[in-house]
């Protein structure tokens, strides 16, 4: 197999090639937290994406994730938490 020219390899600490942007990395982390059940951190990161990268695909995905988290909060009886998230999604344009 041929090896990539050096200038094309951009590696992180794990030696894995990546060209991913900051919002994508945040989205990835947020999703990991959500899957691990650490919802508060996930909500923070999703909100950060909406604040700092509002016109990106990552913001669309974050809005979706936050909406669904809010729905779960509502089902679990945590109405205030749900409302807070929905308000946040609505105010960030």
């Amino acid at each position, binding site marked *: 197999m041929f090896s990539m020219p050096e200038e094309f390899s951009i590696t992180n600490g794990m030696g894995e090639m990546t060209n991913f942007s900051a919002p*994508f990395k945040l989205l990835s982390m947020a999703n990991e937290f959500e899957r691990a059940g650490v919802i508060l951190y996930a909500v923070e990161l999703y909100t950060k994406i909406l604040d700092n990268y509002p016109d990106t695909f990552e913001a669309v995905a974050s809005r979706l994730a936050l909406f669904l988290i809010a729905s779960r909060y509502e089902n679990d009886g945590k109405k205030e938490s749900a409302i807070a998230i929905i308000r946040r999604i609505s105010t960030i344009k």
Partner: protein
Amino acid sequence: MKIYTYGIIDSNISLEESLTGLNGAPVNNIPYRDISMVISTIDENNVEMTNTHAIEHRKVIEILMKRFTLLPVKFRSIYNRDQAISIMENFYSDIRDNIDRLRNKEEFGIKVIWSGDKIKEQIIKDQCRNNPVLLEESESQGRRFIEEVFKDYVIDKEFREKADICAAIVDNFLGKHVTEKRLEKLKNNDLLLNAFYLVERGKEKGFKEAFEVLKLAPGNFRYICSGPYPPYNFIKWSDPEACKQSGEKVL
């Protein structure tokens, strides 16, 4: 004489209802131990299948799954009686395990559609902006080729990673209502997720309500739900190769 098969049920008692199947033929069952294969006779000189037959097959399946735990067979499964019994005999253990595992459960299908081409376009634009070195004109053809291959690899990787995350967000939400799932991501650029969920009877209301919430969610996604179906996608074989060789087109 040929028989047309609909599925295997967890009962060896003769079917009570006057059920008709393909071409109006009466539906009955061939028992084996505590299971039976549901069949109807078919004219072996006229086995061409039509849309009408598909509808008739579907109607029988819908009625059976309300009363029994049904392991459905593929449409157009035609055998003789000895073959039908042989299948139940050879795979009895697997059939029994599947029936026990899938009792009182139904399958739903969820499709999530996104604008894959637009997402890819945006990725390409972002790549151009953030990594201009990838687009430098090179002198040699070989080097240019490698540049292109690498560029396509990076774009495709990011596209797939984004798809993974979006699919995970949806699955994380719906998955709380299901007992088993099978996910297929990016069957094509626009079909982000093709998921099959196994839902316990009695909990399908919660699942459907969750889907209705999902449809209201913001974002440029389209959601399609189908079902309930019998558990086509959740039947497991201890020896899939043996099943292919012998049971072949059955389950």
